[in-house]
């Protein structure tokens, strides 16, 4: 087992990845919105 807390760093000074990353985030945001209050088969109740 390893956890690479030293991240692999990709430098993007020219902004080549900016649009792709924005698209990824936008898609994730859409999926998150769709998931809100969706029906699920399993619900776990926890005492905190």
């Amino acid at each position, binding site marked *: 087992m390893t956890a690479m*807390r030293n*991240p692999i760093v*990709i430098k993007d000074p020219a*902004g080549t990845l900016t649009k792709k990353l924005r698209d990824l*985030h936008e898609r994730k945001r859409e999926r998150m919105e769709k998931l809100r209050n*969706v029906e699920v088969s399993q619900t776990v109740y*926890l005492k*905190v």
Partner: protein
Amino acid sequence: MNRRVRTDGGDVYLVEVSPAELNVLDEDVRKYVCDCGIEILEVILVREQGEGATKKNVLNEMVTYIADVFASHKNAIIYYLCDDMLEIPSRNKKGKNSVLSVQEYRSRLFSCMFTSYVNDHCVKGVHDTCVRIDGVGYSQFLHLVARDEHMAIVKKLKEDVFSGFGK
């Protein structure tokens, strides 16, 4: 695949683990992933209700669910994109970590939870690879969790990001 977690404090979370959209990847990489029979599963965590700090047992519940899905999918690679949507109520805003962005906070928390889980459950041969992309005025973080035998695919995915996702 999803699971809802409700706390008696009124907080409600949803954990979703589902196939990631691969359109962003280079076509050759996508084909390689498919030919290897690999499923890339994206983790999405949504707070549906409440503003309470997320307690350790809630985090443990979420991590356990993700780990169960991963364990039952022998050809899966877990993918988590650290987003900046919604604030983090439990975030330390005074200490040395107060300068961390929301994305970096989530990335560190993901790494901590991964390490904690594998240590507690004596998991061997599973790796958490964190990728940080430093653009102009921002840093983005993503994680890939994979078994030993799938590290070559993780390498391919990293290379694809390096090359600008096939441009």
